[in-house]
Each structure stands twice: as C-alpha cells, then as structure tokens.
C-alpha cells in the first residue's frame, strides 16, 4: 500500500512534495482533485494524506470533512497558499492533523510528515490526554490548547499530535516576553537536525512569559503536555471572539 496520498493541483508543488517524500523512502499517490482522491482512497488505504485546500471544483475542506465523518484514522495535513487564520482554524475544526502554509522548506515538510506517520503508527493521536487536572481547556484540533487562568492570562501548550512523536529536538524556540502572537500563527517551534515542528497558537495576544523549565527539560512536553509542559503564558487580545473557534474540553477530560 502506498504511504502517502498527495492531493495538489499545482504541478510544481505536487512534484516538489512528491520528490521530498520519495527521498524519505515513502511511496506517493499523486492526485489533482478531491474526486480523484476519493477514487484512490476507495482503492487503497494510505498512512498519511497531504491535502491542498484550494483545488479546482471541490475544496480540500470537503475531503477533510469526509475523512473526519468517515472516522478515518489516517492523519491528514492541510497545505495552503492562502494561509489565513480562518483557513487554519477551519482545517483543524475539520480534523486536520496539522496545517502547513505554503511555501515550506524541506525540514518543515519532513517534520510534519514524519510526525504524522509516527502518530499513525502509534495508533492515533488520543494517547496523552490522561491525567489532566484542573482547568478546562480549549483545543485547536489535536494540535494545541489554551487554558484560561484565574488571573486573566492564558496558558498555551501542545495537544496530542506532538508528545512522543517529535523526534530528536535540538532546539526549542519560544516567544520572548511581550511578543505578539496571533491565533493560527506560529507560537513556538521545535527544531531537530532534519525536522522542524511549528506550533500554531490557539489564541492571539501578547506573551507574558515562556515556560522557563522547558529550556532545561524539554522532555516535559512529552511527559506532561497538559501540565508542566505548557509552552507560553499570554494575555489574550480578543479572548471572547477567538475562543469560539476552539473546541472546549471540560476539566479533567481527555
């Protein structure tokens, strides 16, 4: 069975992505439209899908929705040349594993693909949520979370699609204090020798502080992604209007 289903109408992007993936030793099914993708999916099962959002005819969102509704365990990565916050939020809402704005370079693509494959191998992304105490959380898909604190600040951390599947991390980039973060834009990044993993912020605001403990023990992200492994504390800019795009999970939930 092929490893990847690549749905992309732009030849240059399709060929570039396919080339990289093949260099990773993966087999790639290349299709140009949602209809073709349905045909391939009916014939074979894939380990990972890469879906462009803007396709001729039916959009990539439709494919994401169909996959979610069908309960497919296959992680689907949305890619888009029009990487607005709205598109990112919609992709995660429709169950996308991750969102990759164009243009991307090799480490960014490889990072997402490998992490997705590791997740798939692990058997889905629902592993790490156990043992979460305290606050209720708002999730950007299975990608990141936000937890409002009593003092009005909000903690931000990574959700199930990161812990245990990040690979080798040599560097963790967290925003400095007073840095502006935007909903759906990069809030943190994990860098390895061959991979880059970016964390899209569930909420916008101004950073108060990054989690200093992560500098010494980055494994906290793997061990306790919903607890001590939080990434950054922010003062939300528009909590009321932005939080509606997130999925609420009650306290202690998983």
């Amino acid at each position, binding site marked *: 069975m092929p490893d990847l289903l690549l749905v992309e109408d732009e030849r240059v992007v399709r060929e570039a992505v396919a080339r990289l993936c093949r260099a990773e030793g993966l087999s790639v099914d290349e299709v140009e439209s949602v209809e073709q993708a349905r045909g391939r999916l009916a014939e074979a099962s894939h380990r990972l899908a890469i879906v462009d959002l803007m396709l001729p005819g039916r959009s990539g969102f439709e494919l994401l929705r169909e996959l979610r509704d069908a309960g497919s365990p296959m992680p689907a990565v949305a890619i888009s040349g029009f*990487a607005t916050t709205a598109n990112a939020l919609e992709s995660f809402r429709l169950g996308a594993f991750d969102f990759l704005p*164009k243009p991307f370079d090799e480490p960014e693509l490889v990072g997402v693909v490998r992490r997705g494959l590791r997740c798939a191998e692990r058997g889905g992304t629902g592993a790490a949520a156990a043992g979460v105490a305290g606050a209720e959380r708002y999730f950007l898909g299975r990608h990141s979370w936000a937890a409002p604190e009593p003092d009005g600040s909000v903690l931000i951390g990574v959700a199930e699609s990161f812990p245990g599947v990040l690979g080798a991390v040599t560097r963790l980039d967290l925003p400095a204090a007073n840095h502006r973060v935007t909903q759906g834009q990069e809030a943190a990044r994990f860098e390895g020798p*061959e991979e880059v993993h970016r964390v899209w912020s569930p909420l916008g605001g101004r950073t108060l502080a990054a989690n200093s403990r992560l500098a010494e023990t980055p494994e906290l992200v793997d061990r306790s992604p919903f607890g001590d492994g939080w990434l950054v504390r922010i003062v939300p800019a528009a909590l009321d209007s932005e939080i509606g795009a997130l999925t609420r999970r009650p306290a202690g939930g998983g």
Partner: protein
Amino acid sequence: MAPGTSRPPQAPGSGRRARPARLPAALGAARIRVQVIVAVVAASTLVFGLSSYLILAGERRALISQVEQQAHLVSETIKSSTRYAMLLNRREDVHQIIDTIGRQDEIDQVRVFNKDGQVIYSPDKALLGSFVDKHTEACYACHAADRPLARLSRPQRTRIFGQQPGGRRLGIINPIYNEPSCWQADCHAHAESQAVLGILDVTLPLEPVDAQLAVSTQRAAVLSGAAILAIVLILWLFFDRRVARPVAQLLEATNRVAAGELDYRLAVRRQDELGDLQRSFNDMTRRLATAQSQLYQSDKLASLGRLAAGVAHEINNPLTGVLVHGSFLHRRAAEGSEEKLDLETIVHETKRCRDIVRGLLDFARQAPLSKSLVDVNEAVERALKIVDNQLAVKNIRVTRALRPDLPATWADPNQIAQVMINLLVNAADAIGSGGGEVYVGSELVEAPEGSTIEIKVADSGCGIAEQDLGRIFDPFFTTKEAQGTGLGLAVVWGIVQEHGGTIRVDSKPGRGATFTLRLPVSAQPGVVENPPEAPDA
C-alpha cells in the same frame, strides 16, 4: 440665450397660477452688478428728480413773486403819479404819465378801464375806447360771482396768463377806489355812491423768469444725470474690484476643487464677509483634502488586502517549488561546496519572500477590534512598559505628559497599545543608537462637535524628508532599508481609522518627528463600526 426663454410656456388653464409679476425677468437673469446698479439708478433718479423739482418750484415761486412785486410797484407808481392829474381831470397829463411809464421795456401793457370795461388810458392807443369783456382774465377776479367784489387781496389781484414759450405774462389789477377827494373834485365826474371808479391793469412779461427757470431746469437735469452717471461708474468699479473679482475667484476655486485640485487655496486679504467666505472655503477645502486622503488611504488598504489575498496564493505555489527543491538540494550538497553556498542563498532569499508575503497577509488580516471602555493613558503606559527595555538600551529618555483626568473611551485597548508600541518603536528607530529623547503626551481636546483625546509621540530622531511625509503611512513604505517591513505605521493608520480617529505627522529632516493621534471620545459602543475583514478563501 435671451432671458426668459428658458421658461416653458405656460399652457392656458393649466391650473398653475402664475406668480405675481416680479422684477422684470431680464433683471432676474442679469448679473448682480447690473441688478444693484439698476436699483441704485432708480433710487437716485427718484431722489434727484424729487429734490430738483422742489428746488425748481421754490425758485419759480421766488422769481414770480419778484415779478409780482415789480408789477405792484409799477401799478402803485402809476396810480399815485396820476392821482393828482385825475383829480384835476387833466386827461392829457394822465395819458402822458401812463405813456411814459408804460413804454418801458420791462412793462408789457398798462391799461385803465372805467367801470363799464372801456379802456380809457393806455400807451397802446389802439386799445383806447375798446371794451373789455367782464369774463376776460383781467376782470375775472372780481366778476366771477354775480355781484362784483369791491375789495381784493393781492394774490387775488395777480394773475398769470398766456402760453409758453415767451408768451406768458403776469398781470396785476389795481382797483381805483372812490375817495372823498374824487367826488368832491371840481369836475364832478364821479358820484359819491360809486365804490370802484375804474381798474388799473399792469401786465409784465414772464419771459425772463421762464428763461431763467429753463436754464435752472436744464442745469439740474445735467447735474443729476452726471451725479447718477458718477454713482453708476463708482458702483461699477466698486463691484468689479470688491465683489465681482472675489466672486469670480471663488467660482474659479470651486471649479478647480471640483476638478480634484484639493490643494488649491484662495488668498485671503479681506476682513469682510467675502473674506469670511474665502476663509471658510479654504477651511472646507482643507478638510475635504484630509477626508479624501484618509479615504484614499482606506481604499488603498482595502485594495491591498484584496491584492494580498490574491497575490499570496499565486506566489506561494511557485515559492513552494523553489523552497522545497532549494532546501532539498541544499541539504544534499557537499559541505563547503560552492553549490551549497548558492543553494543557501536561494533558500534564504526564498524565505525572505515568504516573510514578505506573510507580512502582506498579516496586514490584510488585521485582528477584529475587541472594544471596551478604555483608559487611554493606561494603554499608553502599558505600551511604554513593553518598549521600556528597548528604549533604555538605545539610551533614549522618555518624557511623559499624560493628562490625568482623561475620560474613558470605547476602544480596543490592545490595539491602542499596539499603535503606541509601533509609534514608540518607530521613534526609537528614528533616533538610532546615538541616544535621544521621546516625548509622549496625552490631552483632551474639547470641541462642539465632540471631544477627542489627543496623543502625541515626538522624537528627537532623524526626521522625515518632505517627499516622504505623504507616504509614511503607506504599506511597505520604509526608510529603514532592510530593517523594517514598512507595515508598522500602516498598521497604526489602520487601527486609528478603525477607531474613527485621525493621525498626522509633522517633521523636518534632522529635527525629529511628531505624530499626533486623535481618538474621538465615545462612552458607548457602536459609534465606529468594525470594517469588513479581508476576503478569505
């Protein structure tokens, strides 16, 4: 086009009542100058005509009374000169005296009638013995009634008769009353019962008077005409200089402004109402220009948002190809090789393109406003706190002059803080590493149309060249070369606009810059609506 032809002819019985006749239609269509002059000419003609008439009438009365006096004098002279001869009944002597006096040039005619109307003495011998009808002008004064009057007052004795020109005469009759000496005289010509013995009638020509009046009338007419002409001339010139010219200039200015020349200004050199109008016109044009430039800027931002959305998608696909292939080859190129370096450049520059496009998209997708009642000073303080470090590192001293009792206003506190941060960072960049000063002030500006909060951020930095002032808020305009994205001030501009405020910059190269930001004070939400977001996919 002839005045009036533009009016449609009214159908008879159309039911619309014709308006009462106004000034002639031609006057309504005429220039103001002509209208005013016509009115002034009419008024002055009336005034001059009336005063000339009154003056001439007075002069006429005075002259006639002079002639009347003269006639009276002549009449009395004849009467007293002939008295003695009459008493003696020496008719030759009476003839002699009357002839002598009556032949003077100034005297038209001297006649003496007896009570039967027969002319008994006159220098004109042809008249002697002729009868005068009692209804002629000389007799009418007494014989108007059935019974002749015995006594007459002087005006009643005077009469003016004859036709102009040259033929008018003034006559005065002098009744010769019966006296004791008359009926006691030796001749016994008159009985005692007779009241009036006869009438002495002296007529003088009025020609000199009429001639003088004609001269006076003519002179009055000429003077009045000249005066009216002078008034018209003065008015004409006055209007030309004081009204027509400024009005024409205003008209010209209006046309130019209408044609889009919004920097056109009138020279105001007057203090009167037209000066006020000019000032008001300039003020209007200035406001119009400001409004238009803000509209233009908004329009530009909106267009940019749409453009960004389109361009981002179009450009990101080819950039993906370049970046993926470039990074792919770069990682596999031999360490230290020339190819590796070239590919590194490709990857690096492509990422720069990506950042630019992302900046464009960020800009097109400014966060929606989240408004609440905000203490602007607090937002300013928050911004200052955030950039405090950055300013301290650059050795920049901050002076604050925040007015303590500013009213809270409906705004997005984060966006206001964002505006302040961008302005402060901009100030810090303008100052550079050499150190300098930044002034931050807030003030309440109260005006009848609504109060505004004014925030000033002034720096001692390098200033802005005049040609750059107009573009400083344009997206991607930067003077910081590679350092800046050129979006900071555009973002400021956008946020201020979304709050219904204004921002202005004053600067001279080398002498720093002052950004003046004004936000309307509103205690209620909904005054400024959120603009629609940039279109999404």
